[in-house]
């Protein structure tokens, strides 16, 4: 009953919108996605198709989610009515913030892209404001649904563990074609990108305009840096005895720093494990990790770093250490990639095959191959490395492990060995795949000696036999015996 009046109000409030304006800049994006096979990292999994929507921004650039474009082998831009298509390419992609900027592969001048209009990017709105969610019918007609911003929060929408500002919008959406990602507008300008919809609660998550603006601004100079990160892990200080022990005031806030990643912005500015972070800039953080944002109210503190500031900015941190307060100046930078990368999107996983032994660099993606219950089902030694990387970082840039054994004449007796962490090969420390390859070039006493972290602790290979076997594996269809990575 309410909808017609809302729509009328909207029409009345806008400067003469025509039905065509409901879909201005709206286009379809079809991507073909292929990821690498976890067990056989030299080959791709079967392709999957993804159909979503994008919005054409000034400069013939198209914004959509990172998830739409990640691991794509082909991108097709398609007009709303499905009549025109043109191949697309990725200009920039941020897996953590879940945003991608696309462009047509060839010069769009004089093509259908000239005729669909463009969307300006809008500024932020307040909770309670109304927004329009754009979808397309199969026939190309626009569906325009009005929703209300219910709350603002930091959520992780693609790469686990990376949280960014998002609007939660209440609206009743219908399923429509290409609705995988959907532009959200206000007053005819792009406000955000819808990443998910919960039909039970009728709540959708929308990447906030601040994040989109920061992303677009970063792209401007042609080099995409990405969002900065302090490089810390923290624990809340809600527990009163813990606060007493730390010497913190009973009623104030603070975050306990439980880990400072080596080489990170935090490490460089002198932040240490055991410090308590009281304020970032002039924003004080409460004991549950929130600060008061001038527009949105209480927000989780990480938005002060990731979403509010760019790489290269400096930032003052107020900390509590040994009963004193002091300020540290942090120069913000990208996080150093951890020992075990959180994702391998668009990066073919490094591997090496020797005589039938298959070595890989451990990434979080490898765990996900163990299914939904991977936290219980994945090998315990690898899980321990994932949860306690600090115990494995010394002498390693990446964690190289023996993922499996292909039965060959060189690996007789080793068939059941799998998922073993490698420490040394031929007496040389293995710090990543390239150093493993180097170690295999120098057998000692006519043998390859591979040290692993469980029974039988050491494996031997005959270099001549394993080279022969490697040749046979190439004949059997392996495209290459190694991919050393970055």
């Amino acid at each position: 009953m309410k909808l017609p009046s809302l729509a009328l109000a909207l029409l009345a409030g806008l400067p003469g919108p025509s039905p065509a304006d409901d879909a201005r800049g709206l286009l379809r994006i079809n991507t073909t996605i292929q990821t690498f096979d976890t067990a056989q990292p030299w080959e791709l999994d079967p392709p999957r198709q993804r159909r979503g929507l994008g919005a054409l921004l000034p400069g013939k650039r198209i914004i959509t989610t990172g998830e739409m474009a990640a691991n794509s082998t082909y991108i097709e831009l398609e007009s709303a009515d499905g009549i025109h298509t043109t191949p697309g390419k990725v200009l920039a992609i941020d897996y953590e913030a879940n945003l991608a900027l696309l462009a047509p592969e060839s010069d769009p001048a004089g093509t259908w892209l000239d005729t669909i209009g463009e969307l300006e990017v809008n500024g932020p709105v307040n909770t309670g404001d109304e927004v329009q969610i754009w979808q397309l019918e199969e026939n190309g007609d626009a569906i325009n649904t009005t929703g209300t911003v219910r709350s603002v929060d930091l959520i992780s929408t693609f790469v686990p563990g990376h949280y960014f500002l998002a609007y939660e919008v209440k609206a009743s959406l219908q399923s429509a074609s290409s609705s995988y990602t959907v532009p959200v507008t206000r007053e005819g300008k792009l406000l955000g990108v819808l990443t998910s919809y919960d039909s039970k609660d009728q709540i959708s998550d929308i990447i906030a305009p601040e994040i989109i603006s920061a992303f677009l601004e970063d792209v401007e100079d042609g080099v995409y840096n990405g969002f900065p990160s302090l490089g810390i892990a923290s624990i809340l200080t809600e527990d009163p005895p813990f606060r007493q022990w730390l010497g913190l005031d009973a009623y104030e806030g603070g975050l306990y720093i439980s880990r400072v990643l080596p080489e990170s912005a935090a490490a460089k500015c002198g932040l240490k494990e055991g410090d308590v972070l009281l304020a970032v800039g002039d924003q004080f953080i409460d004991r549950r990790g929130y600060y008061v944002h001038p527009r949105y109210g209480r927000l989780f503190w990480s938005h002060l770093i990731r979403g509010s500031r760019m790489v290269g900015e400096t930032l003052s941190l107020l900390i509590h250490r040994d009963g004193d307060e002091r300020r540290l100046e942090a120069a913000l930078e990208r996080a150093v990639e951890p020992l075990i990368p959180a994702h391998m999107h668009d990066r073919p996983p490094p591997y090496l095959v020797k005589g039938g032994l298959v070595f890989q660099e451990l990434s979080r993606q490898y765990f996900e191959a163990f299914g939904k219950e991977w936290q219980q089902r994945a090998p315990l030694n690898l899980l321990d490395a994932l949860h306690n990387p600090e115990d494995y970082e010394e002498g390693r840039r990446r964690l190289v492990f023996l993922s499996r054994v292909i039965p060959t004449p060189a690996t007789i007796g080793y068939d059941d060995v799998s998922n073993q962490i490698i420490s040394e090969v031929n007496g040389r420390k293995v710090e990543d795949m390239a150093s493993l390859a180097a170690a295999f070039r120098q057998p000692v006493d006519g043998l390859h000696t591979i040290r692993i972290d469980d029974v039988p602790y050491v494996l031997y290979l005959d270099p001549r036999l394993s080279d022969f076997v490697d040749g046979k594996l190439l004949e059997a269809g392996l495209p290459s015996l190694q991919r050393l990575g970055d």
Partner: protein
Amino acid sequence: MNSPLPLLGGVLLLSLPAVWGGESEILATPPASAPTTAAGAIYESVIRIEVATQVFDYRTPWNSGRFGGGIGSGFLIGPNRFLTNAHVISNARRILVTKRGAADKHPARVVHVAHDCDLALLELEDASAFEGLPFLEFGEVPALESQVRAIGYPVGGDRISVTRGVVSRIDFRAYAHSRIDSHLVVQIDAAINPGNSGGPVLQGGKVVGVAFQGLRQADNTGYIIPTPVIKRFLKDIEDGRYDRYVDLGISEFPLFNPAMRSALGVADDGRGVMVASVLPTGPCDGVLESGDVLLSIDGRPIDNAGNIMVDGEKVILHEIVERKFAGDTVRLEYLRNGAKAEAAITLKSFPYSRIFAIRYGERPRYVFFAGLVFQPLDINLYSAFKFTSPRVRKIYQNYVKDGIFKARKDVVVLTRVESDRLTTHMTEFEGSVVDEINGTRVRDLAHAHELLYSAGQPEFITIRFNGISRPLVIPSAEVEAANERIMSKNSIFRPFFLGQPESASR
């Protein structure tokens, strides 16, 4: 009497799957066979055992646990000496024995129990009712396809039951009762069922085994404990004490790989198995090293898979040790860096690996402190709490292998944080391993108790956990009031139980 009591087999069947995966179930069984003339006499020596049990709850270690009961079988092997399965009398609070055809229940007690081979010896408080009855004698391992009879008091009636079958397999396999021990077993196809447990299996008038477990998913597969295992048990207890099985304390890796054989300097003659790991403080510690190649044990050649020949059967090399006792020696011939060497190893049992063996009849140890409950990690605790933290799982899995027991006799885990105003924000520590209390590394539960409860505590008691950056902090001034408050609210009637003297000492 149609007792509503669950049968012993049923009880274990219900309690075991959690840890055993349900592959194998324990049966209460028996059978007996006897040539017609002796049959009656033999039946008289087979008893029905009725047990009232108390199974402790490791989730609430201060509580009494669950009361229940079950039924099994047993048989007379000497003056007032009855053999049965350990699982028949485990967790028993009261044991009553009934003679065939009689109504009297005779109170019995356990003389010796061997959880690692599922055998127990009982005696009656007053054995006069069994005087003059024949003692069953032991035979050898029955041949494949030979006939046997199982006698006992299984489900389906109150009277004695006899079933007949043939020996279908002789194998080395896991004994479900303790979960971690494997010994020789004989598989028979006679129907043996819950209640048969502890009963004799006979051939030619002699006992060739004790019925003890079956397979859940298969019919006509019953397992019996053969006489080499029984005789070993009876010999072990001759000195009045059961000392458990002994172990070499090594793991082997098959030497099938030519490059590996060549690296270790092993001839290409099919002999030799690699020593993969040597248990710290075990019998071979300081003698063997990882990478040595075992060539023979007590003069028997070892093949590349670690097997030897015994009585014409191929068995794993550990079978030699199976039949020995603590203090016995075993001769090993091995290769190190291509050179032959020999050593005489004095065998001993290895108590720390019992962390992986199910415990019976032991009141769980714990320490309660200001709303926190600390317990030592073992299989009972592990199955009660289903720990998910990879750190706890890793410490548990590597406890013996990595020699963690040397610094920690107990792995002390914070299992519960009782709800209270003091502990509201401490629940994140639940299921974590305690490393230090007030800066001192914790050796075992008694040590933790001492560190927490000794006089002269600092203003803040700090407890550090493995893999967790922040300490748990308790202001000492609040301990007494918190203890009183939480213990009375949660009906925790005593603040700790550190074990009986003998179990605490191990």
